């Protein structure tokens, strides 16, 4: 099974089969994320296609030594979906060169993705319900501290503490 770096190298040589392989590798994970955020299959498919087309166009900007491809794909997918959901401009640049997303895990096989899914679910389930809800509102709906407070009816300070504790736990439980 070729690595992401090898496939990106072939993308730079304009090898369409490399893009198809990367699509097969990551489209399930990305589409599930887009669908979870947007709850709209058509909009999710449009963004999915755009992301892979952008990867095709800008593959030369990608440096495997600086960042993880699935990390970048996930950040860009979430950024675009949240922008569409909230009808605002994307917060981040989509440029591969400007975003070095570090991901200390290999997601190149479906089995690796499933194994990591188990760890992520375990980490989420270990959170108190209020922390998990706040984290999911921030990640999947793009809400800020004060927006979460307004949505849940909790004091702003409480929301800040919950989110801070949630990301601390996540960081500890998802150490490589």
């Amino acid at each position: 099974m070729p690595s992401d770096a090898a496939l990106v190298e072939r993308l730079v040589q304009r090898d369409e089969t490399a893009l198809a392989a990367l699509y097969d590798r990551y489209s399930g994970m990305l589409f599930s994320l887009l669908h979870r955020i947007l709850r709209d299959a058509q909009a999710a498919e449009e963004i999915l296609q755009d992301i892979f087309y952008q990867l095709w166009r800008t593959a030369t900007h990608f440096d495997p030594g600086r960042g993880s491809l699935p990390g970048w794909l996930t950040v860009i997918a979430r950024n675009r979906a949240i922008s569409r959901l909230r009808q605002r401009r994307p917060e981040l640049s989509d440029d591969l060169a400007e975003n070095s997303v570090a991901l200390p895990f290999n997601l190149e096989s479906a089995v690796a993705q499933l194994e990591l899914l188990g760890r992520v679910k375990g980490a989420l389930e270990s959170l108190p319900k209020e922390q998990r809800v706040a984290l999911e509102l921030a990640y999947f709906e793009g809400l800020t501290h004060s927006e979460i407070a307004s949505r849940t009816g909790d004091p702003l300070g409480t929301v800040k503490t919950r989110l801070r504790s949630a990301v601390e736990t996540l960081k500890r439980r998802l150490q490589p």
Partner: protein
Amino acid sequence: MSGHPIREEDFDLLALGALEGEDKRAIESHIASCPECARKLGQAHGRLGLLALSAPRVEASPGVKERLLRQLHASAEGRAYTPARVEPESTARSSGRWWAAVFAPAAAALALASVFLWIENDRLQEQARRLHNTLAIQQREIGELRQIADVIQAHDTVSVTLKPMTGPAQGTAKVLYNSGMGKLVYDGWIAPAPADRSYQLWLVPMSGKPVSAGVFNPETSDSIAWLSSVPQGLAVKVFAITLEPAGGMPAPTGPMVLMGPAS
């Protein structure tokens, strides 16, 4: 903010998009000029990106990949063809020689014929691509049907009938489950879900949390069948279908609609 952020979690909160106002501006302005903190922000983005894996698994339609590959071909062909069509016209216009008048109509006819052949060639290529894509879809469908057949024919496949739990009957379904293969075939009918809801099929194991086997939205009350892959070797106690927010949930939250014990 002149120094590094005091708390490490600030990177995660910024990556999450939860920070706002002055807190956000200060850390962003620091990171813009601090490679070490930019690296930590990249790590936070990667860590939080793992939450994407917790989204209920949904597959895009095969049409997306086909459209993507068509988009690639169109852009490549656009670059290849553009100069070839422009150059002959500009050459003819710039020439003032006598023979230009003689050859101009022939050149124009040739150009027209070239354009016609180019369009025809493009149409045939597009047709070939469509046929190729259709074939790929059919091969995938045949592959799935073979897998369904394998599950149905396997001697260790169990068949479970799922019945309505409460209220008026909303449907009935059968689940064919093969633990060793990690495959499940759903076959049944169920009334269409409300607009903002989806049905989700769960495997409730003897121990541990329920495992999602698929999210589905029947458009009619007709019977449908589909194949799902689940972790291999699960000892299942109960199969259940719940009504969840559209797109499904990582764990069951909604009312149970159909249920059937594994034995």
